[in-house]
Each structure stands twice: as structure tokens, then as C-alpha cells.
């Protein structure tokens, strides 16, 4: 009896040790409290494929320069991850300058890349640093089906004014409370929709809701392969509510050093919108792995 209990206890301990091993080598095991001494950097991402891909590109670019990287992807919306990078649990994020500015300053009205970056640098706390913007942009867009566009004669966002009251608009939950979202559509374009429906972050739920008519307008992204694939119509944004949206690395100053800055700025220097759209298509439509797609791009651009 004693022997079997001892054996069971040893077996249990062994199992525990095994799972601890499994926990340590995998890339998703995080530092407790996100400590970043000795060049260990935590790259985070928001909860949609393009951002995961960009974060993976950053991560690999950093690793190529000898930086030790911990990955924490798919955490949530900007509302959540901004908090995390400000606190220091994350050290690097792929951000979009216009959207970040709109998040930090609800009254910002600038729209060009330079203006946005200037305003952003002024608005960021001392703990955060903005690196160089890429030419690549991915903007939030208000999108309708071809049928809806034809029915109401829609080509641009202002065209929605007469019919908005009959329409339901959908997007990720945070779209409702953002200036680059329902709030701005009302304050800048005077649109009052019948209702807002929480869907997902430009994913299959948003697409399905649009197709089924649960919503008549939806928030998707300009690099979304699904927009051209489904023949959706992106409504023009003449007042530039959605402003410039250059992919820009955001770094926590405790971690920032020249190696990191150089590596990430080098990525920004080479990243262009058509290429980004193509990369996103490979991940979302062709179901290729983000890490392989990232590696390919980095190699093509001599960044590894």
C-alpha cells in the first residue's frame, strides 16, 4: 500500500514536471509581469489577423538582430492592449497612427500622416515612444453590399445621411464608442443609425451579418481580402474621418534601445500598402501561417 502511494506520488510529480517543461518552451508562456531586462521584449497584437501578422513581422525582425522576444498575440482590442503597453506588460505593438491618435485624443481632427504623427508624439505619455511610420496603411472603412449601394445610391459616407435612420450598422464592440467609429460618424457626418450591433473585428461574423442583412453597413478594413472577394463597396471618406492610418511601431521606453529602433524602423521603411494587402490575403484567404508569411516578406526585403 505504501509503495503504491509513493509510486503514485512520484508519477504525479513527474507529470507536473512534464507540464512545466511544456509550459516553458512554448512561445506563449509569458514573463511574470512582463520583465524586460536584458533585452527581453514582449511583442503584443490586437485580435485580428493583420495585426497578428504585423506583430510577427516585428518579432522576427527583432529576433534577427539578436533580441529575445516573447509573443503575446490576440489579446483584444486597442482599448485593452494600449493599457498593457503603457503599464509595461507589453513592450512593442504594431499600431496605426491615426486610430491611436483618435483613441488618445477624442477631439483630434488632423488627417495627414505628418500631422497625425506630430499630434501623436505630443499626446503620448513619457513611457511610450513612436517609431517611424511605414507607407503601408490600413484604414477602417464603412462598407456596404453591392445591393445596398445600388438601392440607396451610395458611393460615399455622406450619401448615407438620408437613410441612416433606417439602417443598422455593425462592427467590433469598440466601434460604438470610438471617434473613428459610430461617435465620429455622428459628429462629423451627422449620421444617426437606427442601431449598432456588436459583431467581431472585421471577421466572419461581420461578413455574415452583412450578407444576411442583419446589418446594412459594417466596419471592415481597407486591406481586407474579403472586401474585393465579396464585392462589397467601400464608401468614400471625403472628410477624412478615418485619417491616415500608417502602420507604426509603438514601443515602451523602458525597453527601447537602438537595436530595437533600427530593426523596427527598417521594417517600416519597406512596408507598403499593396504588399500588406497581399500578405493579409495569404494569411486570411490562403490560410498560410502568419510566421511563414512574415518570414517570406522579411527575407524578400533583406531584413533577416
Amino acid at each position, binding site marked *: *500500500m505504501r509503495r503504491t*502511494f509513493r509510486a503514485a506520488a512520484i508519477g504525479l510529480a513527474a507529470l507536473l514536471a512534464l507540464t512545466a517543461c*511544456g509550459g516553458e518552451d512554448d512561445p506563449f508562456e509569458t514573463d*511574470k509581469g512582463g520583465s524586460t531586462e536584458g533585452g527581453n521584449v514582449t511583442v503584443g497584437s490586437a485580435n485580428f489577423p493583420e495585426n*497578428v501578422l504585423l506583430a510577427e513581422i516585428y518579432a522576427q525582425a527583432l529576433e534577427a538582430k539578436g533580441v529575445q522576444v516573447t509573443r503575446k498575440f490576440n489579446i483584444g482590442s486597442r482599448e485593452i492592449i494600449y493599457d*498593457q503597453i503603457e503599464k509595461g506588460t507589453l513592450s512593442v505593438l504594431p499600431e496605426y497612427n491615426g486610430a491611436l491618435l483618435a483613441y488618445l485624443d477624442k477631439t483630434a481632427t488632423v488627417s495627414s500622416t505628418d500631422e497625425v504623427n506630430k499630434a501623436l508624439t505630443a499626446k503620448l505619455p513619457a513611457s511610450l515612444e513612436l517609431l517611424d511610420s511605414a507607407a503601408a496603411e490600413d484604414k477602417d472603412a464603412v462598407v456596404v453590399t453591392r445591393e445596398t449601394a445600388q438601392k440607396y445610391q451610395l458611393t460615399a459616407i455622406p450619401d448615407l445621411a438620408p437613410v441612416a435612420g433606417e439602417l443598422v450598422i455593425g462592427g467590433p464592440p469598440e466601434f460604438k464608442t470610438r471617434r473613428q467609429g459610430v461617435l465620429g460618424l455622428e459628429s462629423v457626418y451627422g449620421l444617426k443609425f437606427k442601431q449598432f450591433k456588436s459583431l*467581431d473585428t472585421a471577421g466572419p461574423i461581420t461578413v455574415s451579418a452583412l450578407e444576411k442583412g442583419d446589418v446594412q453597413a459594417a466596419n471592415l478594413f481597407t486591406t481586407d481580402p474579403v472586401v474585393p472577394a465579396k464585392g462589397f463597396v467601400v464608401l468614400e471618406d471625403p472628410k477624412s474621418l478615418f485619417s491616415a492610418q500608417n502602420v507604426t511601431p509603438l514601443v515602451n521606453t523602458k525597453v527601447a534601445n537602438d537595436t530595437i529602433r533600427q530593426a523596427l524602423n527598417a521594417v517600416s521603411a519597406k512596408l507598403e500598402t499593396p504588399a500588406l494587402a497581399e500578405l493579409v490575403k495569404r494569411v486570411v484567404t490562403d490560410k498560410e501561417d502568419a510566421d511563414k508569411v512574415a518570414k517570406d516578406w522579411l527575407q524578400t526585403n533583406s531584413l533577416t
Partner: protein
Amino acid sequence: MSDWLDWDWLASHGELFAALTGDHLYLSILPVIGGLLISLPLGLACVRWPRIYPPVLGTTSVLYALPSLALFVLLIDFTGFEPLTVMIPLTIYTLSVLVPNVVDGLRSVPDPVRQAATAMGFAGIRRLLQVELPIAVPVIMAGLRVATVANISLVSVGAIIGIGGLGQLFTEGFQRGFPTEIAAGVALIVALAVAADALLVIVQRVLTPWSRA
């Protein structure tokens, strides 16, 4: 969206599956062990002092009913978007399943057996460890099996806050509209649960050799 499986994708991602499975085991086994370590003394206390059992049972019933997602998000303020945020609620869930089982198991020891053991010189801890607990093993193990299987399944809900072990296959698969990836996650989790359950059955047989006689 086609529900057909992309077998090539499944065949080429073994490394990813292995890494996530290790992560998943870590997230689901630690709470089971933690829950067991808490529920054994707690259950013992309830048997020794029966008056505390009804309130304890009431509390564990309530804890059992709480939806896991609610607990995960409530903990974020305290433990952040870290594994602990998933493991603490799962530990609570485990002990809410195990405490009644520990109590029932210990109570199932027939009085004559207990008295005989005392007469033979087994007292206190020795009697507990060498006579009562072994007899209670089947009932405790039944609870342990339920808790383990449920934990392995519940960890994946943590994917909603970025900590889901194999649940990560769900988030990524869903974002890309890729049923194969989601199905892989489901299959692996079920396989893991079945394997863990089978392992526990073996452990039970090892711990109760008289039942094999």
C-alpha cells in the same frame, strides 16, 4: 464556408499542435492539482466537524454554477492577461467538484472498518492515509475525472482573453474563417481529455489493487 477538412494543413502543423498542447496541459493540470490539494484537507475538515459541511457545500455549489468567462474577466484587474487569470477560476471550479466527493468518499468508509483499524493500532494520520483514503479513492477519483475533463475543456474559453492553450486554434481559425483549424482544436482537446481520463482510471486501478482481485 465549407466544412471539409484541409488534411494537408493538419498534417503539416504538428509542431504547432505540440506546442499548444504543452501550454494547454500546463493551464489545465495545475488547477486540478491545486484543487485537489485544497479539497482534501477541506473535505477532511467537513467530515471531522460535520457542522461546517452544509455552508461549505452551499458555497461550492454556488462556485460550481458560476460561468467561467465571468470569472476570467473579473480577475483581469488583479492578475492581468496572464495564465493565472485562467488557472485561479479553474482551481475554484475543481475544488467545487472535489469537496463533495472527498466528503462522500471518506464517509463511505464503513464504521466497522474504521474501528477495526483503530483496534489494530492505526491511529490518526496513519489510519487516514493507509485505511480511509484508500477506501475513498474510487469516489474521489470519480470527481477528479469530472474535474480534469471539464478543466481541459474550459481552458479554451480563455482564448477570449488571449490565454487559451489549444483555444488559440479557435481564435485564429475563426478570424480567418478556417474550420479546419477550429476542428483541430476541438479534436485535440477531446483527445487530451480522453487520454487524461484514461490515465486517471489507470491511476485508480493502481491505487486500489484489491478491486482487481
